[in-house]
């Protein structure tokens, strides 16, 4: 059904207006990643609000896009993702629009702007490039990250780790976590939405007795590797990066099944102004080249069909993340209140 809808959408001339025929054919054939060679050149000027991300790699992507498009000027305002989202909403309330595009490192911030009614609808041929479960009308995920349970391979095997995150506090395992960390808080938000407030509060209380606190999630993964704790909570890329630097590291990834413990969250982008240019700019981020670059260099998960995941990570098809509208993760306030009320923060 999705595919039929997608091809029908392609047939609409209005949706294809900004794409050359070759690109339209490529899309119709693959419904996956296009090559940058299939895209129209960018011409004109855009202002991008960029939430700080992967240590300069997003900057490399933006520079490459600029270099490839000499008639295109990209003005960038950088800042903390949540602060930029609030700025966009505040500017809109004041009747001002300075940003044409917003690229956020987490989808919660995208939700905040989308909920304010500021995001423009994206064409179906663009959103149709994304994998199922990641197609949204008003924004596009760029790359993903999955919640994992890194475990010490010297002490445990994968089958000793519960496949339900809710069972972890009773597992007898020592656990490392970073409750102050934004990704962890998004995970708790997902748990709250999936399991309910009460169950999440009880889980946090039980975990608080077993959990050893770390400032960040790389710290969690390193503690697992040292054997300081048996298992931890962290986004997948920390473990992959540690193993890239230390191939004999005693750590591997385990995944829970169909719960918040294996949530796939995403960075995302939305257009705030009308016209072809913001949309075509977004298309560049979904190209095979950019998706492959972010997968190989930043260990992020490509969310466009036909691009290989980062080395060392099983394909998304073998993992069973929960179904979740990622923009609902913007609802962070009740999560922080809950974490504070049970003494985790």
């Amino acid at each position, binding site marked *: 059904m999705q595919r039929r809808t997608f091809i029908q959408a392609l047939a609409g001339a209005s949706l294809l207006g900004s794409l050359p025929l070759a690109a339209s054919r490529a899309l119709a054939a693959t419904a996956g990643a296009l090559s940058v060679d299939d895209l129209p050149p960018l011409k004109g000027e855009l202002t991008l609000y960029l939430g*700080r991300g*992967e240590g300069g790699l997003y900057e490399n*992507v933006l520079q490459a*896009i600029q270099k490839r498009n000499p008639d295109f000027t990209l003005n960038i305002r950088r800042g903390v993702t949540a602060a930029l989202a609030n700025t966009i909403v505040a500017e809109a309330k004041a009747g001002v629009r300075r940003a044409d595009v917003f690229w956020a490192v987490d989808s919660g911030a995208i939700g905040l702007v989308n909920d304010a009614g500021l995001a423009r609808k994206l064409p179906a041929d663009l959103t149709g490039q994304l994998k199922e479960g990641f197609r949204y009308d008003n924004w596009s995920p760029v790359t993903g990250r999955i919640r994992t349970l890194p475990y010490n391979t010297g002490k445990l095997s994968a089958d000793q780790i519960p496949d339900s995150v809710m069972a972890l506090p009773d597992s007898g395992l020592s656990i490392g976590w970073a409750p*102050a960390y934004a990704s962890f808080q998004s995970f708790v938000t997902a748990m709250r939405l999936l399991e309910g407030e009460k169950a999440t509060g009880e889980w946090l209380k039980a975990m608080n007795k077993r959990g050893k606190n770390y*400032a960040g999630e790389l710290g969690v993964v*390193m503690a697992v590797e040292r054997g300081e704790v048996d298992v931890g909570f962290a986004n997948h890329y920390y473990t992959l990066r540690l193993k890239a630097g230390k191939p004999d590291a005693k750590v591997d990834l385990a995944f829970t099944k169909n719960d918040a413990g294996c949530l796939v969250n995403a960075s995302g982008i939305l257009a705030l102004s009308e016209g072809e240019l913001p949309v075509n700019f977004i298309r560049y981020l979904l190209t095979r080249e950019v998706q492959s670059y972010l997968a190989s260099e930043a260990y992020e998960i490509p969310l466009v069909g036909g691009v290989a995941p980062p080395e060392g990570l099983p394909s998304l098809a073998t993992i069973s993340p929960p179904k979740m509208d990622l923009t609902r993760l913007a609802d962070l306030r009740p999560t922080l209140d809950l974490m504070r009320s049970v003494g985790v923060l």
Partner: protein
Amino acid sequence: MKVLLRNCHKALLTASLMLAAVQASANGAIGEHVNHLQDNLGEYTEEVNWVIGKIDTMVDTYEAKGAKAAESAQVIEIWEAVDFHAAIETNYVPVYASIWQGLYGVKEAIDAEKPVEDVWAEQEKLEQSLWQALGAVKLAAQYQQRGLLDEIKTTAGPTTPIATLDEVKQRLDRVVAKYAEQLSEEATSIVHDTYLNLFEGVEGALIEQDAKLVEELEKDFNVTLPKAISGKGSVDDVRGVVSDMQAKLDRAKELLKKAESERKDVF
């Protein structure tokens, strides 16, 4: 008290060697004068002389009438009263920290009713720091005139891993400065903020290059430095931890520079 002019030239030379690498971004309220250093050099020089004169009077009072009459708490008000304070804070934080260390050295020697020779020794260190600071600001003014210094900004963030590590190093200098100001909580808060908002963003790339180095820096950020601050050791103890971290961050910069040069192209 005797001004140590002979140290001034040495201070200027030292500052010139170090200044090129330092351009702090200020936070908090600073005057626009920091973006017009050249126009304010006369005022800064007067201020340094004024501070030195005020401290000298305080020490003379201590020698003549004792600790109570000296009113040592005024050292902080004296220093905070001058614009030069912001000029050095925004241009060369390491000397800024030394000034605070010197101010408290004088104050604590008086409060402890130490022999006046001990107070003079602390006063001499303070004066050295002040002249070194003036030298650094004069040099910064020359750089600024030639357009080699960015405008002092309050919101700009680094955009590359190397720039991020430079910013981390500068913030660590501020940790020493705040500790020297006896603002331990603020110093600790800068450590945590720097870790979470800056270092954490590059350590993933760094761990691919040298996992052991990241492990050491993780410990430095989360255990060693906070402990040195909460342990209420000397400013030099905290500075020692920071210097060690900055050396590691220099190694990290080299590793990331090399990795970046070998990175594949996007298109």
